């Protein structure tokens, strides 16, 4: 499970992890820049709960500088199975006026704006692992689909872009948006809300597409059906 990390934009403090039947766990940083903790329960069990709480101070900056080896993030220019551009995305891209844009940042703004206004939010239209291409063909979907389509378009333009999972004030579930590398800085774009990422956003994890970032991932041996519920609560602190 991912843990939010300090970035130029946010400061995380007082993180507490509570698990129902396991006390030991390990922490690691992955190569997308995420922190996660994990463990193993050898005994048989029918239920596992995990809760993470903490405080986030947000909106400390508008972007995150990146000045290290430019090839470190070259892989974020490459499409994945979920963002692969097919006929629909190529057609959509050809209708965007990238010519008039000055750089990557303006291109990203253009994509966010156009996509927000032409794509319909609909929580029943798409599946969990829907591809960007299919979602665009349907014309409707959720934040994940907005994000995948935008990633696909940016990568077609040769702009390194990554999928971000996080939380927003007022939402009962996790949210997803895009970060694009523009002029040596990572900027956050939320095509679902047509907003630049600001102090309303808490960042948890990032990766190539949604499959790298699902907040929790697990594996068990046994012949049972599993059910998973996830709740996100974000409250604003006074002062």
């Amino acid at each position, binding site marked *: 499970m991912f843990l939010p990390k300090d970035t130029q934009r946010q400061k995380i403090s007082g993180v507490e992890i509570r698990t129902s039947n396991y006390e030991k766990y*390990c922490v*690691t940083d992955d*190569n997308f820049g995420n922190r996660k903790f994990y463990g*193993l329960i050898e005994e048989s069990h029918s239920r596992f709960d995990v809760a993470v709480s903490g405080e986030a101070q947000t909106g400390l900056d508008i972007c995150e500088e990146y000045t290290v*080896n430019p*090839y470190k993030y*070259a892989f974020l220019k490459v499409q994945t199975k979920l963002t692969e551009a097919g006929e629909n995305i190529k057609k959509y891209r050809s209708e965007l006026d990238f010519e008039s844009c000055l750089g990557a940042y303006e291109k990203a703004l253009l994509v966010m704006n156009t996509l927000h206004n032409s794509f319909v939010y609909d929580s029943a239209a798409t599946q969990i692992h829907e591809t960007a291409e299919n979602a665009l063909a349907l014309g409707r979907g959720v934040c994940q689909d907005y994000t995948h389509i935008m990633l696909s378009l940016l990568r077609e333009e040769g702009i390194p872009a990554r999928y971000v999972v996080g939380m927003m004030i007022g939402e009962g579930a996790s949210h997803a948006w895009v970060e694009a590398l523009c002029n040596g800085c990572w900027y956050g774009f939320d095509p679902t809300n047509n907003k630049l990422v600001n102090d309303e956003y808490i960042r948890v994890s990032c990766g190539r597409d949604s499959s790298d970032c699902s907040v929790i*991932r697990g594996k068990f041996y046994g012949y049972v059906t599993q059910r998973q519920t996830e709740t996100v609560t974000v409250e604003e602190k006074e002062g």
Partner: protein
Amino acid sequence: MQELIRHTKTINRLLARYGVKFGIYKNGEFNEQLFPFDPIPRIIENSEFQFLEKGLKQRVNALNCFLSDIYGEKRIVRDGVIPEEFIFSAKGFLPPCDGVVPPKGIFSHISGIDLVQSKDDNWYILEDNLRVPSGASYPMIARELQRRSAPDAFSSNSVIDNRNYAELLKEVMDYVNTGGINVILSPGRYNAAFFEHSYLAEKTGAVLTTGKEIVCENDRLYYIDYLGRKQRIGAVYRRISDEYLDPMTFYEESVIGIPHIFEAYKKGSVALLNAPGNGVADDKGIYYFVPKMIKYYLGEDAVLMNAPTYLPYYEDDMKYVLDNFDSLVIKDVAEAGGYGVVFGSSLTKEKKAEFIALLKSEPRRFIAQEVIDFYDLDILDPDGKQVPRKADLRAFVLAGGETKVWPSGLTRFSRNPDSFIVNSSQGGGFKDTWVLSR
């Protein structure tokens, strides 16, 4: 020699009993086939072997340098020797491996380098296999059985003893071991190469396991034996491909992998042979750049040549490929095992036009090579007549404290007289490879 030929049937019967088989997937169906053994050995003179040895060590050393560079600083891309498209969009480049330094810095511990000898006696590298190259066990057991039936044949012909493969392998495992036992991780007994897994475990003294007997706890790996006792693992010679190795990092649906093994590896508490992510170096597109790599990292000229290769990605090469289409063989870089190989001359007019259109739309996907007219080796046909077949050689190079070449190898030959494809996934058989001490 007559003695060896006389026992062919017995040896093949014994090989079948030992389970020396090869699994083949065709049209979604899995079939096991025997891997027929031919008694006439390929003979390599000592001086020739020394030349091969020099070239193979050099190649594998450069490939190891390349892997540690690509998952580290990426100097070779920065310096413009290899265009970034060939690295980051390669299927074998695994972003989770970026920045990970394997124990002792070795990525490709066991490399299977495929070579052919042309009719003008030159050796050419056909491809590098740096992920999970298989096949060493076949010549090992064939030699073992032959020694029983014709013990004199080997000493009287001054053949170098090749029974040291297990020793070489154990040396490498021990060298990178981080403290604990050595295990061989197999997908299980239905895997095509299960014979090899069990044979190598037996010969090296490593424990043969499947993912179910291994757990990762507090970033350490443990083998759980039949009594439930836990033993720390220091090195895993894994015979599972990267995608299936760890469901928490790679392919989520994998049931043969071990959750969090990648974390233990990343933190340096266990060695994986070979390192995950090696696929970026044995990609057919990268093959073209290996001689440049040797120059770049080692400052030497390549001892062993590549087959003359063209990258349609470069304009000049594309032009050459289109002009000489009929004399070339075109390979899809994403395919392996003899699939996705097209001989320009074999296409009909329509197919050719279709293929050229595809080539032009996705130039990065293909490489083109001159067809090498390689050396025929005689095999014994079912009637006992000697007939020629195309054959290649897979040399095994082991990199531990130093890089060593096994003085033997897997010689494979094509099933049909007119076929150039010797890959065992396409049928065909194998021979013993004699390296002479004189």
